[in-house]
């Protein structure tokens, strides 16, 4: 019964969240105040959006992306005021609501504060990614590379290196595949050689006589040698992808945290 109640309750809340957009008059007043550089007023209008801060978060209105857009504008206002400390708190909050937030709820032309807000959110994403990369481990990366060359590099943030390994490994694999196929064909040809092909009755004892066994055997041997070399190259590249993690660590993304 309580579970049913919760489901219904959350359903109602969720339904309301869908339509929990910024009220038009609030939006208009906030935009007007922003354009007149009355930032405190703009902030107040937005912060007082009905239901924005419920007694507990499940009662907050609106939710998710729509909520993130309102806070995007709040951060933008604070950045326009150069209140970076407060802006940081808001940006952190936006980031928890919607990591991909890139716009606000207000219809305002792009300005420096807008670009700065986007930039800061981008840096937060980058920082988060850096944190994720920093938490990767050597064993995790090596294991991944053992399964799939380049995957470990990708896991640790070395994308180019990862793709290089993947490409080289793929090429080596193709080369080995074709060499192996050629070897198998040659071998099959050798195995299919008939005694009759020696033409014993026609043999003259000179070099113009046919030697199909020997020729095809040598051909198969040559192909086998190439296929083995191709396999060695493939294994080498594969293992290089694994041992690459001995020399590389997690990638450094060059994170900037200018306002914090």
């Amino acid at each position, binding site marked *: 019964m309580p579970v049913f109640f919760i489901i219904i309750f959350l359903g109602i809340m969720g339904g309301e969240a869908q339509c929990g957009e910024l009220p038009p008059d609030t939006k208009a007043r906030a935009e007007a105040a922003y354009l007149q550089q009355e930032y405190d007023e703009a902030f107040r209008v937005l912060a007082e959006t009905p239901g924005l801060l*419920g007694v507990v978060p499940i009662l*907050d209105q609106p939710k998710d992306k729509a909520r993130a857009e309102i806070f995007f504008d709040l951060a933008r206002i604070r950045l326009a005021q150069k209140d970076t400390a407060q802006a940081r708190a808001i940006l952190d909050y936006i980031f928890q609501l919607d990591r991909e937030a890139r716009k606000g709820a207000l219809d305002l032309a792009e300005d420096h504060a807008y670009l700065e807000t986007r930039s800061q959110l981008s840096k937060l994403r980058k920082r988060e990614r850096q944190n994720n990369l920093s938490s990767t481990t050597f064993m995790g990366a090596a294991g991944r590379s053992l399964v799939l060359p380049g995957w470990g590099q990708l896991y640790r943030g070395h994308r180019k290196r990862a793709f290089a390994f993947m490409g080289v490994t793929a090429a080596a694999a193709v080369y080995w595949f074709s060499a192996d196929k050629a070897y198998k064909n040659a071998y099959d040809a050798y195995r299919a050689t008939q005694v009759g092909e020696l033409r014993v009755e026609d043999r003259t004892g000179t070099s113009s006589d046919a030697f199909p066994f020997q020729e095809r055997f040598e051909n198969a041997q040559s192909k086998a040698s190439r296929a083995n070399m191709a396999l060695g190259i493939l294994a080498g590249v594969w293992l290089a992808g694994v041992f690459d993690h001995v020399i590389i660590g997690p990638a450094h993304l060059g994170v900037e945290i200018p306002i914090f």
Partner: protein
Amino acid sequence: MRVRLILLMVWVVCNTASPVVAQNTAHRIAVMPFKSVFNPDYGAFMADRIAFELYSHAHVPALSRDRFVLVETDTLSHNLQDQLQKIDRRVPAQLLEPLRQKVPANYLLTGSITSTGIHHIDILFLDLTTGEVVWKGTVRDNPSWVWTHNREVGETPALEMRQQFGFGLGETPPPPLAVELLPKQILFQPLYTNTFQALAADCETRLRTTITQDGIFTLIPGTLKNGRGHQRFVRLNQRLRTQANETTLADAVLCGSLLTFGKDGGADNIAIVLRLVDVNTGLILWMEASNGRRVWRHDKMSDIVSGVVAGLTENLSQFGADIAETALTELRTQANDGEGWARLGSAYLHRGLLRQAEEAFEKALTFAGGHAIAQSGMGQIILRRGGDFNTAVASFRAAISKDPDYLEAYCYLAQAYLDRDMSDGEAYAAEALKRDPSFSLAWRILGDWFLSREQDREARDSYQKYLALEPDDVDVAERLGRVLLRLKDYAQIDRLIAPIQRAKPEIANLVPIVAIKNLRVKRYQEATRLFNRFLTQVDLRERSLFEDISTVIPEFEHAVYAGLSDAQKKVYRDRFWREKDPDLSSPHNERQLIHFERVWIARQEFGQEVHPWDQRGAVYIRYGVPDYRSRSGWTPTLPSTQVQQVKERIYRELYAFPPEGELIGPVFPVRSDRGISISQENEFAAVGQEEENNPFNDGLERNQTDGQFTNNSGQESYAPVTLQNDHSIVPWESWVYVDIDGGLVFDFTKEMGGMSGYDFAPIPPILPTMLKSTIRVAEYAPSISFERAVSNQADNFRQQQPLPLKTFYYDVVDFRGGAQRTRVDVSFSVPLEHLLIVTDGKRPQVRLEKSVALADSNYAIVYRQAKAVSFDADTAQVDVSEIVDVIRQDVPPGTYHFTLTLKDVLSGRVGMLKREVEIEAYGQDKLVLSDLMLVKSVSDTIEDVRFRRGSQQVIPNPTRTYQSGQDLAFYCEVYNLTKNEFGQTNYKVTTAVKAIDQRAGFRPFGANEQPEVALSFEQVGDLEWERLPLAVDLTNAQTGPNRLIVIIEDLVSGQRISKETSFEYIP
């Protein structure tokens, strides 16, 4: 106070709204204790824990606003809570109004808990403005998850609740208040718990100590009490907050709850939630939760409690950090180099701001100087947080290696070792003193160490040296006083402690030391005065320990006493102590003073780990100093013969084999690394033919035939401790009382590693094979012995008997007194030859202290008189002279406990007499005759006003002996004579003297009733009562014991009354 209120309201507005959104105030949430039938402590704690979770997410930094503030509320009745739990969507109107009256909030979070192994917490979140249910759901908890999920106590349901409410990283605890709004004076209320009050008290003591040491907040003494005297409240309602506001200086009250989880009802996991409640508004200003866990058996519970408390106090210090930051402004500005940062770190550390201290020390380590201070500071931080001991020691060693002259590091290192009972610390303190003998801290550390080891002489020397350097440290003065009391060095107490006590009368702790010294040297009046002063100085909780008599009354009286109201308890106590008073005639009660002394010593000596004391304290308060005491780790002393006899008797009852050596330790088996040696068992088994001669063989079958009881010397086992065979692996103490209940041994062990201090040694789970029977083990288990001793002899008071006064005589007679009262004349005589005569100037004199007490039958009222008087002594007739005196007291008629004490001041000899006396009522309606007072002489000349009776002098004769040729003089009064029509009375007096027939055997003709002497005469008067000083000629009387019979006949009314008394007639 009003200004504070306004400031706080301003803060509420400011803190709940951003500067631009001032009109939007935060919601107020009240969290009601959850109803938990199976364990009320669990319900109260979980409500607090969930409230803490809410508090931790009350603030939204993105908007600089609080979602809500938590407020303290009144509790709801169970009935109302039950009705609330049945609500689905909306609170019925008839419930809503009572709720609004009880709960000063917009929202109410309440719940109830049911348990089917897993606890289900049904939570209801109500909007009290609309009456709607905001949220309703169930979260679950299971004590075993603390171990299996590696969670803290209460964490699982709190996290589930947090998730269901949608709290995330976007919310934080509210920021600390501004300095001017922070509460400065805090009242600390005992933690709420019903089950683990001793543990709670232990935590409270540590909390108080740490908060006081940090000094950011001022703890004011006392606690809040409700009408029934309870101090542990689940919520501080409006009435209690008003009490705090009106009767204390408190700005806020620090309170909370405690819960423990553990196997078999133990306390392996401890959790405390604290909250700071503003007394004016009821707002919860701060909350914190802390947990501790005992993982290994050898983990000390005291260390775990320290860790839990450290977590709480560090956070509380952070809450008030702004106060410290303000105080440390100057130090911060000076922190430009290593020394500066290290000094700043030390200052932070002393205020409990460990995080800031750590940062400052780390900063100091980046500079060239100050490394020694920083390293030792880091070590202290580790220890305070309950971190790794070796890491802390390494920090101190690093500090010493950086600067060998930084003596504090030696002391911190010494303290770290000594706190763990590792004597290696002595060497470090000694090293510090070698480098600088005037370094006082090292002396104090050594003194504390010796004090804990009861090496009293060493402790005294160390403390004396410390006090010579730091004369204002009264804490150390108190410790020195304790040492001197142990050493019975009363002269040094007079020389060192008493002057400090007089100079600093506000220091309560020194008063009992001087009081006990006075008690021991029999200056009872001064001891009484000082103890009374001490009790007025200490807080209510401490005073109640001294006044509580449940520690000395028999077990069966506990329930009666506990059921009394405060006023009734006081009456009960007063009667109890009067009944126990060995000398009612003195104004002081030695027994009660001894009780105060014992309680104080129990608090000091046995209350270090447990509040108020461990089991040793309980035994000590009842029975005082044991006749023999031994302790693990001490060099044993050989007990007296009596003690040895008691131990051997109990040993014989318990064991089948004689002991290996002298019984100096516990007789009851205690945890050891091995039990009785196999070789010894084999030895006794081999000499089977000698079994009959074995005094330990009582013919009983030994209890252990089962393999499970077979002892293995390689395993942990239980065994007694003897001089030659001590394999104990648990700290123990053994106390012997030779005269309690026929001789008792109380063996204590410290099983819990510090949580409960010393407790009675438990019955071993694996019984040693050498025991005679399991029944005997149960019978002689110390806890059961104690219960039995309490029921047989609830307490013990061994008064040092003074030299007795060889002979004294007394007589108690009563006459009609004032309105509704009877006058009691207590006369006494002491032969002069038994008194010490001293010539004062030209007059030889004796000096007597005479005191008399009459306590009514239930000791409710005591009438007491005491006076010191001097008498001239006739040295020419010392062998025949005597001192005669009389004491008069008016009392209501009834049965009294009569005490007469005579003390020869000059020789110190004391004579005391106690008996029951019946004091007669002298009504107005019928003829009444007073008691007959035998007198030496009656004369018309009054030479001594003490003996005046009307116009005559009547000198009593308490010896009741008359010699041949001497008349039998006596004095009596007759009341309510009837007057005739002429206003005159007419009555007949008949006196008779008759020998008391002392011959044994059958009297064929009955007893001879004919008196030897008889006299009768008529008297006429005009008063309704008359004095009758009379004399009887004893010429015809028989020698030996005689009876004097007086009969009065009122010839007007025809009423008749008679009285008689006895005397000895000597030829």
